């Protein structure tokens, strides 16, 4: 009980409160701008969190990401342009409702079920994480290695692209972490005589480049989205309680799917929304209504993407394995603030963990009033000219990376190069999220790999013979073989169809 009171004390402080309110508006604004993703919003915040207290820093990340995921629905509903990729799955549905004159209801569903989904996700985080923490305390380097591998493999499985390209992207990320002298032998690797490369590539400039600069680059090659006309909206929350009562099954299923996908490393809110929308359609009694402005799928997918946000923190806090790209950034911030991820976080810094839960709940509650304000202001925010927003983001990329790297201009070069790399990779079907996961986890993978090998005198037997590592390794190998299985199944079916 004492720790809970302590946690409240940590959260209810002026700086944390200001951070929550400011980042809420920031997240809502960035999320509502088409083409700016929640991940980008979070990546651009990191330099700011550098100078905040640990709890305030985490609060900004949690609040901004939750708000951005919701407000990405606003331009989706009103313009048929998803503000963030997480809204893309149900943009059509929401826009169809708007065309039927039900814009308020559509926006209300997005807001209401996002907030409820976020709270459900938080409850799962509170429940699962401490349970797993106890179990995880007994893990040694072998288990840690397999866990990291499983995380990396999952990230390639859920990528909406060729699994082989995803694995290649992930390996590229791992290779990038080899740069520098931070390795088992302490010898400079891949530095090509450059002193800047001795320290290795920091994840934050790489993230800013891939998620923020590459977006600016992509926007330059695309047409400006159409302007949003000002429209008068009625009551946003009207009828939401009835909808909650009418579709309890959809909401619960959305929450559960979102939570599960969030826990899977590498799969985030966008994946959760796609899966939930598809699931809702498959299990619906009226699948023919989908796509015509039917609330069912909207409820399920909206509940799902916000639920995944909180549960994505489970592997991040326990093992330092990001649940999605946003927690990949959050892990960097956790390390920076001395809250190193690991099971001991729950025993030694329990009050910080409780504070994190409180912030999550708080963020999802204030989402409702703030979200309503944002919806009312949407026509002004979404109408902000891209030619004014994008250049400012570009400057932020430069200055932000510069300041987190100890005022070193090398970080600016990193942003530029990773922006270019991210842009080219994305265009050619290499999922950048998999590479980022590789960059974030590379050092940990190598450490557990080499330490394990040294412990076993070079033998790989203990990697498979210990009970927990046996389970984890078979899961990893199954994840590796899954695409092959799916592919052959499809081939077989096609052959049968031809034969019949």
């Amino acid at each position, binding site marked *: 009980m004492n720790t809970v009171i302590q946690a409240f004390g940590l959260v209810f402080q002026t700086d944390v409160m200001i951070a929550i309110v400011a980042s809420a508006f920031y997240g809502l604004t960035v999320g509502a701008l088409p083409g700016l993703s929640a991940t980008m919003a979070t990546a651009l915040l990191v330099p700011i969190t550098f100078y905040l207290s640990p709890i305030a820093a985490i609060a900004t990340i949690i609040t901004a990401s939750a708000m951005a995921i919701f407000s990405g629905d606003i331009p989706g509903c009103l313009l048929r342009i998803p503000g963030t990729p997480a809204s893309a799955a149900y943009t059509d549905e929401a826009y169809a409702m708007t065309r039927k004159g039900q814009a308020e209801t559509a926006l209300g569903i997005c807001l209401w079920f996002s907030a409820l989904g976020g709270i459900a996700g938080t409850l799962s985080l509170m429940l699962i994480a401490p349970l797993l923490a106890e179990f995880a305390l007994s893990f040694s380097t072998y288990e840690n290695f397999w866990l990291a591998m499983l995380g990396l493999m999952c990230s390639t499985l859920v990528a909406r692209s060729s699994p082989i390209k995803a694995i290649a992207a992930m390996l590229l990320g791992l290779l990038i972490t080899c740069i520098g002298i931070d390795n088992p032998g302490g*010898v400079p*690797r891949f530095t090509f005589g450059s002193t800047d490369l001795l320290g290795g590539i920091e994840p934050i400039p790489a993230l800013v480049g891939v998620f923020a600069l590459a977006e600016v680059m992509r926007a330059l090659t695309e047409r400006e989205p159409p302007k949003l006309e000002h429209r008068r909206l009625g009551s946003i929350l009207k009828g939401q309680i009835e909808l909650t009562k009418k579709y309890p099954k959809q909401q619960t299923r959305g929450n559960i799917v979102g939570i599960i996908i969030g826990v899977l490393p590498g799969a985030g809110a966008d994946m959760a929304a796609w899966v939930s929308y598809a699931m809702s359609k498959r299990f619906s009694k009226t699948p023919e209504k989908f796509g015509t402005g039917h609330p069912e799928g909207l409820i399920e997918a909206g509940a799902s993407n916000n639920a995944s946000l909180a549960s994505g923190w489970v592997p991040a806090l326990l093992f330092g394995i990001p649940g999605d790209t946003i927690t990949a950034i959050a892990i960097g911030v956790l390390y920076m603030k001395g809250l190193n991820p690991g099971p001991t976080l729950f025993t030694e810094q329990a009050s910080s963990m409780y504070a994190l839960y409180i912030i999550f709940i708080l963020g999802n509650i204030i989402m409702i009033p703030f979200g309503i304000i944002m919806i009312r202001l949407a026509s002004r925010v979404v109408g902000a000219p891209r030619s004014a927003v994008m250049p400012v983001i570009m400057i932020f990329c430069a200055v932000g990376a510069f300041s987190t790297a100890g005022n070193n201009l090398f970080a600016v070069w990193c942003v530029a190069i990773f*922006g270019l790399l991210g842009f080219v990779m994305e265009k050619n079907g290499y999922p950048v999220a998999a590479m980022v996961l590789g960059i974030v986890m590379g050092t940990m993978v190598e450490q557990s790999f080499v330490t394990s090998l040294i412990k076993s005198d070079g033998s790989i037997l203990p990697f498979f013979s210990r009970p927990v590592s046996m389970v984890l390794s078979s899961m990893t190998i199954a994840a590796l073989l899954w695409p092959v299985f799916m592919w052959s199944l499809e081939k077989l079916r096609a052959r049968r169809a031809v034969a019949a």
Partner: protein
Amino acid sequence: MLLSDKITGGVMVALGATAFIYGSTLPPVPGQQVGPSAFPMAVGAALVLCGTLIAFGIGRHFEEVAEADVASHSAPDLHEPLPAWWNWLALLPPALLAFYALASEALGFLPTAGIMVVIASLAFGARPKLAVPLALIAPFVINLIFLKLLRVPLPGGLLPFPW
């Protein structure tokens, strides 16, 4: 910027092979069987394998499925397609960042950022009426945030921040 799978796969193979060969030359830790060379060699070998598979077009099927899925959910493009040279505009932001890295120490943050904003804003199709005031105000505000709120001094150069 769209390259064929043969090219990107080839690049992956080359990268993996380089990592493997370079990794094998790294000095071992005395008295240990495994050292700094193990990880780059393992990753390099896997990358060679993946690159080969990509170059032969294996796994392409999954991409087509995903692309069709995305296409069926996105708004139809009512405009005529953009000319191909537009794609080259994407190189502008990294080029401007490189300019920042080279010039900001000498010129100072305010002029460097101002130049970057004008160019980027015009490239996005802004009129000078918007681009020029933006270039004057935005760097100033960003400098204010970083200097006063976050206490990060940005390069002063020719035109240091006035207070």
